[in-house]
């Protein structure tokens, strides 16, 4: 059992490395070949490391591929994502504290989405066809159609300006300043999570094993919480990666609106001064972080869903059987 889990995790991680490389290659190519790019003109080298001397020793031309390889090498070996033009320091030191803000917002947003969305969807599923179900479905339709900035503006006016309960702009030391941004980010995701949880719960409740449990005389509470919930969560967990990607949009809007010094506002700024290095570097950092989150949610998925685990462990099992036969 433990071996299977380990094998699943290793295979998942090995699949994840080429995925990141492919994305990096696509982004690098896009930025590299744009007209007027400084990327093609500037040499990417730190000077004096092993790879550099290798390139000079074989006198490789400074073309697209060698630059791409050096870019990747610099990321892996020195955590160097290139440098921004105005400051002489590396990009990483410029944005270290900004990443923290963005990730904090994103994670609290995802957490709030799940904490509110899943119970809402399950409640609607249990009350299927009744008034509560309809209320939830109306709320989700409205929430999914409202753009996040509208919600932010209305909340800021009502709560911050009229009632002056919370600060409008971001104050790093004040935990209350995180409430409104989190709510704004989460509202967009709650609708889709609630819908997803509702439909998967309904699907699970139709399964014969639930009928069997009920006819056995188990109390409804334990049928739902102990047996149905676990299976109903499988699709929700599998969609977690997509949810994080979706909420990143809301995070950028929130950073812009509540003046949070995060990666989103930084990238928008570098877009307006056409600093392609910064855009590429930030995109690469964010994508690596998001892919890591995806990996975690995939591994979590494997823990919840034994069939996935089995599929990955299939071949070695067969080999063992053959050995036993031989």
């Amino acid at each position: 059992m433990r071996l299977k889990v380990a094998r699943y995790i290793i295979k998942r991680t090995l699949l994840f490395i080429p995925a990141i490389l492919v994305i990096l290659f696509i982004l690098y190519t896009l930025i590299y070949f744009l007209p007027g790019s400084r990327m093609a003109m500037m040499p990417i080298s730190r000077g004096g490391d092993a790879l550099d001397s290798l390139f000079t020793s074989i006198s490789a031309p400074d073309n697209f591929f060698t630059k791409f390889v050096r870019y990747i090498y610099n990321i892996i070996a020195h955590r160097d994502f290139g440098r921004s033009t105005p400051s002489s320091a590396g990009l990483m030191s410029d944005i270290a504290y900004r990443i923290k803000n963005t990730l904090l917002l994103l994670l609290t947003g995802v957490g709030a989405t799940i904490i509110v969305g899943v119970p809402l969807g399950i409640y609607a599923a249990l009350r299927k066809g009744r008034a509560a179900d309809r209320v939830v479905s109306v709320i989700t339709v409205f929430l999914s159609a409202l753009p996040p900035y509208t919600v932010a503006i209305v909340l800021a006016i009502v709560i911050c300006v009229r009632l002056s309960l919370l600060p409008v702009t971001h104050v790093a030391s004040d935990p209350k300043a995180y409430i409104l941004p989190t709510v704004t980010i989460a509202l967009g995701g709650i609708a889709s999570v609630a819908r997803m949880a509702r439909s998967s719960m309904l699907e699970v409740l139709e399964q014969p094993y639930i009928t069997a449990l009920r006819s056995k005389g188990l109390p409804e509470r334990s049928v739902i919480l102990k047996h149905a919930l676990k299976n109903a969560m499988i699709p929700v967990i599998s969609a977690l990666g997509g949810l994080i990607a979706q909420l990143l949009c809301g995070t950028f809007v929130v950073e812009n609106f509540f003046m949070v010094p995060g990666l989103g506002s930084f990238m928008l700024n570098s877009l307006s001064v056409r600093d392609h290095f910064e855009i590429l570097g930030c995109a690469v950092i964010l994508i690596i972080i998001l892919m890591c989150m995806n990996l975690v949610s995939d591994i979590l998925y494997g823990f919840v869903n034994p069939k996935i685990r089995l599929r990955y462990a299939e071949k070695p099992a067969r080999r063992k059987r053959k050995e036993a036969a031989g």
Partner: protein
Amino acid sequence: MNGKVLRSDRAGGIWKDALRRFCANRIAVISLAVFLLICLSCALAPWLTKYSYTAINVHNTLAKPSAEHWLGTDNLGRDILTRTLYGGRMTLRIAFASTVTALIIGSVIGLAAGYFGGRFDFLISPVMDIVASIPVILLALVFEAALGWGRGNFMYAIAIAAIPQFARLVHVCAASVMGSEYIQAARALGVGPFGIISRHIIHNVAPALIVRFTGALAESMLTCTVLGYLSIGINPPTPEWGNIIYHARNYIRLAPHLMIIPCAAISLTGISVSLAGDGLRDALDPRGELPAARGLTAGFLSLFKRRGAAN
């Protein structure tokens, strides 16, 4: 000849049934009508208003609604109704263009993966997973940086981000149809891949595809306005619902209608599209059998079920 008549009869029957069910659903019909009305009035904007969306009038700024300007004027004295209609024209055009592109490319990929299966399937699925995991906003930023800013290049990003959901959906549907006996029979009769795809698979995929299209349309419209709000999208003075709202937010306390009107337009469009989509789903899929009728998740679920059955 005879066979052709029979087939078109049957196909017409299915669609006629769906149309009857759809018309019986009052909410769905109303929301479809509202959506079509919004699309039509945005498309006919040059004929509906006498103002230009760039014509400024500094003597009449932030005016309240009046007979002259039905919805008032903005901070530069431009007619809000005109700007909202032209903005909708831009937003809806981008949403339609990117969603239709994604629909076509995604369907081709999905059909190829579902029909040929095997190695192609093995190659396509992880690539689609990778594309689906890139956030659309990062893709849009990179496209804008790479291809030029403010000229609507983010459209490609929206289209690319929407491809995987169509590809997965068509893939799942096509793969489940490919396993059935009548496809075997058709093959035994010597029908080629194009015959099978055009006669059998497309008919089975179309209902789910239509439903998914409405959902993707609403999503890409919202993404477009969010990008416009973040000033990644269309540059002013060309109106777009997102950038109208971005510039109106400074006047929120003086003249809230500047912002409320485009917000209402976005929300109304989004809600009418999703309600019409729900109605279409109920009409096309009365027994709830379509794998993707309930969104991406169900697509995942059925993919997983099929594999479970094969094991």
